[in-house]
């Protein structure tokens, strides 16, 4: 599938259904492996039809969509250790070889799994949707910058409004969480006719085998970026409190630090000599797997999330989690396997850690986590494909 110019599904059929073009403009410009770009890569690598998927990008200079050669898909789906800059370099020459997509073809099926704020691209979508016949769909992640602007640089939101303005013209929208769908319905677009289903993301992206409880596990792990809304400082301070009280517990923190974080750097500096603490920074999937194999529970106490994949993946691996309330990712799961904190602070976090250090309690949570049914990436892509297929 990775070598094909299109991701085909109906080999042998004399009249294959029209392909669906998938708009990868942002991914091909900034080929990251996290967040939305990770979702896009999962779509590319797990697509099984029924309709063929054709990657394309919007060219803001030529004001049109261009189908991308198969080499682009190869680069974007290979499991390599290339850096983002490497991938950019590798993609560059292939992007120039894109072929224009005809208006009829693009109207037959265009799916956008990206968030973008570029005015010309937005105008292209609005033009496509103007007469109401084009089959255009978007996957919507969240509305955080619009509903919680304080987490972004000042005056950011106004520049992002092209996304919202265009979204209200898009005939079909699917959502990664119930919360996003509710926001769409009741706060942003306020038009129930266009709202599609919730398609939860997969929890098996780490490819970590189901873990088993072991009383010897004393490590708690945080995975995610370090930025103000994630409250990592509270986690660090909670463990400082525990260590001051001679509690036998360890902490591993994985994730790059963003420059808006002001609380965490001095604490990380202070903890450098602490043998029970490890800060790995940005880590590969392999390093993350290794860390989780020693983990008793993960922590994720963010104040604000569009989805919140780390606790979701933790539970998918069978590892309990200490999490903040109202994480959209956990809302799609049945209860169990987690301690939910309604108020976030070092004291509350330390209390939850103490609870989980109790073997009996921990074993119970491990049992609950093991019984949770968590969607996989295959299921996500399959549901997305079915929904897109319904359009025809």
């Amino acid at each position, binding site marked *: 599938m990775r070598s094909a110019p299109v991701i085909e599904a109906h080999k042998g059929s004399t009249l294959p259904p029209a392909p669906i073009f998938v708009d990868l403009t942002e991914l091909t410009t900034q080929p990251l492996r996290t967040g939305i770009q990770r979702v896009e890569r999962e779509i590319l690598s797990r697509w099984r039809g029924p309709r063929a998927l054709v990657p394309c990008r919007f060219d803001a200079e030529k004001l049109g969509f261009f189908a991308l050669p198969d080499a682009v898909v190869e680069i974007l789906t290979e499991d390599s250790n290339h850096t983002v800059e490497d991938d950019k370099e590798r993609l560059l020459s292939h992007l120039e070889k894109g072929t224009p997509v005809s208006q009829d073809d693009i109207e037959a099926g265009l799916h956008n799994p990206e968030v973008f704020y570029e005015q010309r691209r937005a105008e292209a979508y609005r033009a496509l949707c103007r007469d109401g016949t084009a089959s255009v769909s978007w996957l919507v992640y969240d*509305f955080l*910058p*619009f*509903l*919680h*602007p*304080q987490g*972004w*640089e*000042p*005056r*950011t*939101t*106004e520049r992002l*409004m092209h996304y*919202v*303005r265009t979204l*209200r013209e898009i005939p079909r929208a699917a959502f990664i969480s119930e919360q996003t769908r509710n926001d769409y319905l009741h*706060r*942003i*677009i*306020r038009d129930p006719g266009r709202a599609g289903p919730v398609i939860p993301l997969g929890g098996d992206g780490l490819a970590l085998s189901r873990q088993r409880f072991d009383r010897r596990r004393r490590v708690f792990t945080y995975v995610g970026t370090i930025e103000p809304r994630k409250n990592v400082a509270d986690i660090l301070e909670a463990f400082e409190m525990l260590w001051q009280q001679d509690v036998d517990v360890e902490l591993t923190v994985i994730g790059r630090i963003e420059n808006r974080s002001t609380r965490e750097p001095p604490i990380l500096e202070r903890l450098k000599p602490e043998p029970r603490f490890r800060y790995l920074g940005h880590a590969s999937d392999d390093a993350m797997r290794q860390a989780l194999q020693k983990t008793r529970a993960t922590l994720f106490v963010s104040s604000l999330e569009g989805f919140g994949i780390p606790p979701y993946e933790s539970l998918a691996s069978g590892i309990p989690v200490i999490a903040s309330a109202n994480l959209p990712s956990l809302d799609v799961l049945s209860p169990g396997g987690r301690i939910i904190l309604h108020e976030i602070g070092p004291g509350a976090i330390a209390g939850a850690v103490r609870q989980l250090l109790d073997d009996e309690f921990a074993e119970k949570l491990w049992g609950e986590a093991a019984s949770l049914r968590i969607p996989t990436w295959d299921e996500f892509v399959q549901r997305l494909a079915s929904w897109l297929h319904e359009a025809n």
Partner: protein
Amino acid sequence: MADCEIVFDMRCLQDPSYKDRGVGKLSANLVRHVGCFRSKIETLTLGLVDPGLPPLEDRFRRLVDQVQSNAYLGVKERSTVFVELSPMTHDPLFPGRIVNDPDILKLAVVYDFIPLMKPERYLPTASSRLDYHTQLVWLSRYDHFFPISQHTSDELRRILNVNPRHITNTGAPIGSAFERIDTSKQPARLSEHYVLVCGGAEPRKNVECPILAHARSRELQDAGVQLVVTGNYPPGWQAGLRDLYRGNGGKAELLIFPGFVDEDELVSIYRGARCVVVAAEMEGFSMPVVEAMAAGSPVIASSIPAHKELVGREDLMFPPGDVENVGRKVEAFVRDPGKRAEIIRDQSTRWQRYRADKIAGEFWAKVSDLVAHRRPKHSGVLRGTRPRIAFLSPMPPDQSGVADYSAATIKELGKLADVHVFSKHPPVATPEGAASARQITALPCLSSGFDRVIGVIGNSHFHLEVFHLLERYGGACIEHDNRLLGFYRILMGSARARALAERELGRPVMEEEIGSWLQDESRLKATFLGEVAEWASPMFVHSRVTAQIVQERFSKAAIYLPFSIYRQWQIDPTDRGLKLAARTRLGIDQQEFAVISLGLVHSNKAVEECIWAVDLLRSWKIPAKLYFIGGFADDECRFRNLVSYLDLADHVSFSSGFVGEAQYRDYLLAADAAVQLRTHFFGGLSGALLDCIAVGLPTVTNEDLAMAMEGPPYLSSVPDHPSPVLVAESLAEISRKGADRSQFDEARRDYSEVHSFENYARKLYEGLGFEIGTGHRSP
């Protein structure tokens, strides 16, 4: 609480020309020993420093409890003593308000009147003579004088006609190194036989006289006796003296200029000398004479009055120009060890009254005595039963909101106090409530005729004169704005703006960063209020948020005054009938959801976000129309283009120029809602929002502004980084609830009472330390 406050003018300890010389040593000694006074009366000490001079070094800063950068003392809750450590060396206007204050006991240390003795050298121009005489006039206003010698005391009486009862002699203290036991060795650069001449790079030190005497003395030359001349002579001056020495028969190798030496080395040089010659033509006091005696070297000196009272023997003195006389006396010392020993014995006790602790002890004993015998200061205001307040502010006709606000303030404040207004453009008629109105000068800052001086500061050029006076002379300050970025960057210049921002933020700030703040104040990180906070006593602000920032960033307790409503209504602005009539006059459809935004249309009011919010509202089927009431401050094209791009030309209206008062009020009556946003924070206020509140109009504003204005319940707040979605959501909620303003009438009336000018004036009056109803200062 302390019973007494002692205020020192410490400028001489900042000034490199004085801090390590006689003036500085004497001054530091007195300040250092203030404990002598404290042991009798509980005392606070305050040092006045001039920001225009180099910063006060820590070694001096530590000598006082607090330091202040101006001489405005505000509320005096205890006896106050002002000690002018050096009255003739710096701008006498700086402490002028204190010197003019009859409540304060003012003491001056007086050194000399040398410039009057040789005006052709020291006061060569008319301007310098005028300045010096101005300083003399200010000096005459002190209550008690501490001349450093009998000679200076005599001059004080002669020149200023000071009553001897108001004079107590003091002296200059000898350095501690002179009192240590002699363990020094012969100075390395000098031979066993040398004569010391105490000089200094001042012609009046008259070192030429002993240099000539030494050069011409065959006895001294043949005996190889060196002549050591102390004082920091520049190379050119030194060369001239060497030429003079050689030209009169002196051997070049015998004339030594040791240059700068530290105090220990100086003591060694004194101690090793066969004798010391001090030949000055004029002195107020002579430290070298005392130092020589303390070091155990015989000293001969010119027969000027300051030397006579120190040396006390005619045979050890010489007329300043008498070279032969000096030569004879020096030769006698070198030749006759017995004579030398006899003089040393005679001089061994004369210097002891100049020990540092003894001088300071006597000084502070006299101050204690003066304080004890001073009549208790009256507790009322200085003149009459009503306080007199100097009010320095822009005033109408200045086209400034602050000018209007000050006029309204004075109208009410004038009911409590005599308010004298000083402004750049004095009003044609005396403003209502004011006792007088004059052009602004330094006079109110120096005069004893005002119990308080209030300067009104804001972020515009209208405040420049007031700012400079506040900077120099201090005073109470009403700070109208929550940031002074434009004022500093544009009027004070880039370097000062940067330095101030760096001090506030504790990090480097580049010019580009300040430029980016000017372009978009939502990025602003510094308030630029640090200097005003430092100078003001007290500082008044109109927002609790600003007060908190001032406390956190500058450790200054600012007084909060509730910002007052200055657009009054004689009708009930919540009346529905009036609303409908106003809508008819303005042509607003009755079905339309009319949203107004008042004031200059400026990007720092989140104009784009408001336009986008209208786009959203209309997509939600709410028939909204947004009216911008006010001219464009910037970016007109950008805003109009956005309206056009979003196809909102029929739903967003910009006023076409100046909006008259009647029409402005009509919009306030006619609107269903308002939106007043700010993208810069720090507790900034909005007069336009105040107008909306005053008519009970539901208004969407951002959190910082709502908190700063202590908004009533009919304000809806959105986060400080405004999002069009949240703005639209809040407006939609107002639309959903219906727009009957009468439901907010009680809250509106309560707010209006708290935010009335009557209440404002009372709080201002109390904040200045006066008690309502008594016309007296507190306590």
